[in-house]
């Protein structure tokens, strides 16, 4: 397997099915066993099943490291931003507050900032990270630019993000559709409706309303 330098995290939210395999697998990684460094959230479950997995973006100029008063956060030669070094970390939370992506987590029990280190124990020896290994939808993919170009012809990798006046470039790439941005699906508009407008609602649920008395 090629070593880490040519391989990147690619995150494609359009593929994510919210299964949490990444979150569960992250806890199996030897460098932070028992703790997951991935967050997976519904954007707004009331209106959509859309979820997004958040792994460290591994910034080229990591804000977490820049704000660390103890110089505890190191970036490897290949560009992997690691968890705080235990002897140095003073658990001040600066990094947690400063990260534009909300990645570092304060482990209060260990008094240590921990974060996604791209499964350094695995990727540094040519293995895939746990999350991207298991991801059933491959919303999380770890590989080369050539592989992603071949596998995802309809997607464009993005790795520059704008926060106010600041542009942050990252090692991790987000995949966005080249075109055909999927429309928001709506159950009601795809349903058979004999009438339109306000009448729909009454018609659909007429029986439900009529039967309310029988609940008493």
């Amino acid at each position, binding site marked *: 397997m090629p070593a880490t330098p040519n391989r990147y995290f690619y995150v494609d939210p359009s593929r*994510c099915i919210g299964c949490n395999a990444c979150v*569960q697998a992250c806890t199996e990684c030897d460098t932070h066993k028992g703790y997951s460094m991935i967050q997976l959230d519904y954007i707004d479950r*009331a209106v959509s*099943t859309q979820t997004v997995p958040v792994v460290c973006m591994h910034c080229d100029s990591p804000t977490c490291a820049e704000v660390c008063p103890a110089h505890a956060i190191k970036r490897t030669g290949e560009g992997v931003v690691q968890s705080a070094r235990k002897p140095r970390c003073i658990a001040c939370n600066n990094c947690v507050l400063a990260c534009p992506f909300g990645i570092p987590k304060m482990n209060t029990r260990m008094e240590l900032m921990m974060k996604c280190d791209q499964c350094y124990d695995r990727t540094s020896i040519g293995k895939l990270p746990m999350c991207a290994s298991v991801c*059933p939808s491959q919303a999380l993919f770890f590989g080369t630019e050539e592989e992603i170009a071949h596998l995802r012809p309809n997607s464009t990798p993005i790795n520059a993000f704008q926060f106010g006046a600041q542009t942050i470039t990252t090692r991790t790439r987000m995949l966005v559709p080249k075109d055909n941005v999927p429309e928001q699906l709506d*159950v009601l508009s795809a349903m058979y409706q004999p009438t339109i407008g306000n009448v729909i609602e009454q018609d659909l649920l007429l029986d439900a309303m009529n039967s*309310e008395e029988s*609940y008493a």
Partner: protein
Amino acid sequence: MATLVLQPDSISEKFGPHLSTSTGMRLDPGVVPDRVVETHCCFCGQQCGIQLLVKHNQVIGYEPWYAFPFNKGKLCPKGVKRYLQGAHPDRLLHAYKRDATSPHGFSPIPYEEAIQKVADEIGRIQNAHGPSAFASLSGASLTTEKTYLMGKFARVCLKTPYTDYNGRLCMVSAGAGNKKAFGIDRAANPWNDILRTEVVWISGANIAECAPITTDYVWQARENGAKIIVVDPRITPLARTCDLFLPIKPGRDVALFNGILHLMIKNDWIDHSFIEKYTQGFDKTAANVADWTPELTARVTGIAEKGILKAAELWGRARTSFLMHARGIEHSSHGVQNVLGAINMVLASGRIGRENCGYATITGQANGQGGREHGQKCDQLPGMRDISNPEHRAYVASVWQVDPADLPQAGVDAYEIIRKIDRGEIRGLLSISFNPIVSLPDNNFVRRALEKLEFYAAIDFFLNDTARFADIVLPGSLQEEDEGVVATAEGRVVKINKAIDCPGEAREDWRIIQDIAHALKRPHGFNFHSPREIFEELRIASKGGLADYFGVTYEKIERQHGVFWPCLSEEDTGTHRLFEPGTWNPIAKGNGPFYFPDGKARFNVATYTPPAEEVDTDYPLMLTTGRVISHFLSGTQTRRIGPLVDQCPEPYIEVHPMLAGKLGLKQGDWATLESRRGAVTLKAQVVNTIRPDTIFIPYHWAGKQSVNQLTISAQDPISHIPEYKVCAVRLRKADAPHSGAT
């Protein structure tokens, strides 16, 4: 006895479900395993390859198995955390007998004593009431060797016709439909045919949550330009970004398929030469769909006409396509008709039996395919043979060295076995790998029926919810404690490898079955020393049948990463894709690619009938049920794995905001859902990703949390699958939360 010996809480105190989490060796970084075992996941029908890490006879974790071609290392959260089912505090380490004086309702007894007790009770009941007064129920999570042994045990040792399995709740509609149309019951294609197809049609399959790894195949097809059509009452996670979503009313699938076929014929989007050359029965089927105009289809299915027209055009004009369905269309009192409707659409398109063109039902259980092939079904003998066919009986009897006349005739389906128990016709039961008190519909009836049993013995590794009613509980084996084969959703026979030994007094299930046969003094045919020996007999017993495993060997499976059956000889590498033109099969003998004597597939008139229980003013809403990603079936395993329970701790009532608003329900409010059979009080999940006339509840939980208290036991007349996917209910806001989870 089979009543609940003590209050559920007292039983739970000892037998769980308790939650396991990673501790000790499983949490320490850098522990070097004693060995790494290549095997498969214990849960769903995809049977993902996985490597288990073993230390001191304990599975301490996993490593992705990148080389296994189906999943290439991918796993869902159940696969990731499955190792936590071993070394579990609830693991049955002894045999138990019911004991009202014990604080937990059961007392451990020596294994041999338990076996003798089971044999004595079988003997007593059969002597008094005849062989058919005793029944067995088994399951499709067992290896194929065990399912073969269970079928043989019922027919040769118990001599009862009454044996069936939990695939009755799973694969039987698809199986019956496939046999009617193709003459064989297996997914027609390997999943690789999904990748470069133009249209993927998914009906009644929550792929993202129930067959998660298949998601990547669908997404990769989309990446290669495919259009994705999803038919479902809910916008499932995979439906969210599909090209066309058709929000169908539960239980109306065949109406949609007929409507699409109507439009295919009207617009001449059919493959005349394929229909002429490779099928029969088209004209009758075409006449049957003549009435299914888009307007009628829309009215019956509840789908907007424009969606139906668009779907027909996408499907009709495609050059390649892959249609998949699952329990969403099959769990119906006309499940077989639904399946036939889907197959008619495929046959009319001519897009089957070649590269990138396919059709498949997505198998549910670990061995949902293999478990329906070798004789644990009530009407089946090994090799998918028919127990009422004299030639089939004679062949299998010769392998088993018994008189064909001594083989029982066909029995009845699993639910009918429960009804026979209720009527007192069946008085004793042995069950394995089946938890009917959670998994069968109208389960308050199931409980009342089980309470009438004179004797009930359950084999399991945990005290599942039904085993709590048992007189004797025998400690069986976890998947990782034994070896054997299973057949995956693709029809690929793979090998489960043993990772650890059974703990305590627990035994491999096949040993337990044989021990009972010996204690009954009916040892004939139950003298196997290993799963391999059982498999060798199965190869012979299946030879010449539809599901011919004669050419499958453990070594070939390991060498090829699985063998697609049929596999007829040592030289045969297996059959990846069924129905390729010019291929030979033992039924058609060269006359054509399908498994009928003339080699032609059959169109079958697929008739629409409404669900058994239509909505009315008393029960104005439709209930549908299904799974969530972090749990599996009746939850016997997954409700005991901490991280999976954290992910989804309890069931919920999924309801559209329009309906919730009418009832004054807000997100998280308690609500009571009632049917004519039962009620359940759960929290409301208010989401606009479901039809407003439909309620969804996941079914993995027991007792007061079980949605199967509400579901209806109406069954398909052909497959006898229950109608889990639709019944009539009413919903109201609940004042107070229910108490007790059991």
